[in-house]
């Protein structure tokens, strides 16, 4: 195994001893499987030429190539080591963090040279200065491992590669394997154009989660770039309170053109929250709640919980409403499971519901949650209708941000 830093700038000579220039860059195939080195880029008198790796006879002190090798062109799915990988930020998929490539490790077997991985450690930096051996005494002194910090190719995701014409099939899986928060974190370090192309390549569900984790400025900018159809698709999938946040700085016209494409139910929720968003907790209201009638049985309620557990992210409580849709009671999950399936809900519900209204202050909401040990509180309108819930984590997040 050797490193790109040891290779770049090496003299290239032909078998007959003619100088061909110096090695400037390598080209590799970035499709599936091992990334095989296919071409070398040679610089001579500031002119750039590309030759096939097949024409290389040996690589040691010099790079020796065949006499008068054929010049070749860049093909599909090919990338440059120096131009596209070295010094760039990549995602370390296993470690789930963003790192910079200090050096590129190249391995050769009987028939091929291929990219073994990238060096992201201190050694990579010192190697470029020709001072790598200087590190050894230090590592020995501190008794730490002195191997290079290498990440294998399989566990990295160079995202900026997607800007080129390369369409990696394996990329999708790798991308979907990265935690959405990390991916969002990475995307915030690239251009909005790149964000756009990555989001486009993700599955709808992952895309929505990544968008949900992006900084609000990016969310807004992104949604404005997407077509109303795609924007509506994403809004459909992110949580309603987030959707409202994202739309808060759009013009009335933009809002309407997007909302027109969102499903009727989601639209109703969004519009309701948009209206409420001027009040103190309005933006935090999460509209998906589980409601049941007081003559429903425990069994049907449990079925309902099971079915809606994804949509109503806060299925800790089932709220009981009368025929006028007024809130009359609440049951927590624990009680639900402790009773016979045939029991009517009206018999076991807690009729004394702790409620808040859209004008309740956040501090008061927190106080109530702590006093009554509730993870979520129902928000009711002046007509006693349930508008949604405010959850503990949403309020604390909001308050933390103000600290």
């Amino acid at each position, binding site marked *: 195994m050797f490193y790109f830093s040891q290779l770049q700038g090496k003299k290239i000579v032909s078998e007959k001893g003619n100088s061909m220039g110096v090695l400037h860059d390598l080209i590799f195939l970035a499709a599936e499987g091992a990334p095989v080195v296919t071409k070398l880029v040679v610089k001579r008198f500031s002119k750039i030429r590309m030759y096939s790796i097949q024409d290389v006879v040996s690589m040691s002190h010099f790079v020796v190539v065949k006499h008068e090798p054929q010049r070749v062109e860049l093909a599909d799915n090919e990338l440059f080591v120096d131009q596209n990988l070295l*010094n760039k930020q990549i995602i370390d998929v296993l470690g789930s963090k963003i790192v*910079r490539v*200090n050096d590129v490790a190249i391995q050769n077997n009987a028939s091929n040279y291929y990219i073994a991985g990238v060096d992201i450690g201190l050694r990579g930096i010192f190697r470029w*200065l020709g001072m790598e051996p200087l590190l050894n005494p230090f590592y020995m002194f501190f008794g730490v491992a002195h191997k290079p910090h290498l990440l294998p190719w399989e566990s990295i995701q160079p995202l900026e590669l997607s800007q080129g014409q390369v369409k990696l099939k394996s990329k999708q899986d790798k991308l979907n394997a990265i935690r959405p928060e990390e991916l969002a974190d990475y995307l915030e*370090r*690239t*251009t*909005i154009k790149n964000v756009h192309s990555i989001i486009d390549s993700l599955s709808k569900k992952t895309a929505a989660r990544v968008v949900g984790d992006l900084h609000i400025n990016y969310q807004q900018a992104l949604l404005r770039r997407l077509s109303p159809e795609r924007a509506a698709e994403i809004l459909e999938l992110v949580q309603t309170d987030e959707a409202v946040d994202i739309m808060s*700085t759009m*013009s009335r016209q933009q809002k309407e053109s997007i909302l027109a494409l969102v499903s009727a139910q989601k639209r109703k929720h969004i519009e309701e929250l948009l209206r409420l968003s001027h009040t103190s907790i309005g933006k935090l209201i999460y509209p998906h709640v589980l409601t049941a009638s007081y003559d429903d049985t425990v069994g049907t309620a449990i079925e309902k919980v099971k079915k809606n557990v994804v949509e109503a992210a806060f299925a800790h409580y089932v709220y009981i409403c009368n025929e006028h849709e007024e809130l009359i009671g609440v049951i927590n999950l624990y009680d639900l499971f402790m009773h016979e399936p045939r029991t009517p809900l009206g018999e076991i519900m807690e009729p004394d519901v702790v409620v808040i209204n859209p004008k309740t202050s956040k501090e008061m909401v927190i106080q109530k949650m702590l006093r009554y040990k509730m993870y979520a509180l129902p928000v009711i309108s002046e007509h006693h209708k349930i508008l949604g819930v405010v959850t503990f984590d949403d309020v604390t997040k909001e308050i933390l941000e103000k600290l």
Partner: protein
Amino acid sequence: MKWLGTLKPRLLIFLMVLGPGIITSFADNDAGGVATYSVAASQFGYGMLTTLIPITIVLLITQEIGARIAVVTGKGLGDLIREHYGIRISLLIFGLLFFVNFGVILQNLGGLKEALQSFNFSVGTFLPLIIIFLFVFITRASYAKVEKFFLFLILFYVAYLFSAILAKPDWGLVLKSLFVPARTVTFDYVYTSIAVLGTTVTAWGQFFINSYVKDKKLTIDRLHYNQAEIYIGSLLTNVFSLFMMVAVTATLFNNGITITGAADAALAIKPFAGELASLLFGTGLLVAGFIGLAIVPLATAYAFSEFFGVSGSLNETFGKSRTFYVLFIMQILLGLVFILSPNITLFNITLYADYLNGIFLPIILFFLYRFANNKELMGEHVNNQLQNALLIGAGVIITGAALIGALGNIL
């Protein structure tokens, strides 16, 4: 009327964008800045005011280009240099930046020390306390909160406005001096003008605006607001520089008193403008030193995390961005050791920091020029001809300035 209808959302967006431009330009008037402006005004009086308009233009153009690059590419100057010029150049540039910034940190620590002394506070107690507060605050608070705190501190610069008023200057003459250059231009005058420019337009300022805009996560559709904010910041900073120089001129220059530092100025204006003016001037210096002490090491820490790919953001916890925060505090502590040791005179440090900055800045402007004109990076937001002309002009002036400065030092 349609314009009125969109006024509220516009204002809202402007407030969201507010921060980087104003904070960076005000930090340019750090303790070193206050010292340079005070000394310049005490030597040349209103004659020095002519430099303010060109300085404003240079500051405005360089800051705008830096911020635009950050908004368009989502990257800081460190990121870009690393990705386009490789490891060796990156190491070199970071080494220089660290060295130059360390000088500026010493200036600010020195300014804080002098300001504390002028209030008769114990340096040995208060300086470490300030530093502990700074470290805890920077590591614990979120980006938004740090930013609000800086914006709040900047309000204290109004102190210079009041000390200028208390000094009872001839405002007609002030206004005239802004536009009409001094009648006799000596070598000393040119030399001092250059120092004034060098203290305002800085290498660290260029790094900081990029990183800070990036950390704020501004996006391209807010670019115009961002530009407006930067213009306003550059303009306001220099308005306060004006007040600073006016306060010194109307008292010290007009009475033939020369000074060697900012704290001197605060004490010396007392007999002419009264206790309050002196107090205000001292307060201004204290705040300037504090802002400089926070921002300059931050600029280095940001640059390091960009150059070498470690996590660095004010929004992250100490655990996640450890290198970033440790580097931040190490610089200050190292500076503290220098400042508290009695054998080092501050005057030399100030000079060394200004020269180094003057020599380093053209290199940074070169990178700025390259990135801002790179179509692949900037797309439609590449520099226009006017911006390029002004940037090159600024580069030539600053390089010339640095050379003259070095020459003056030798002769």
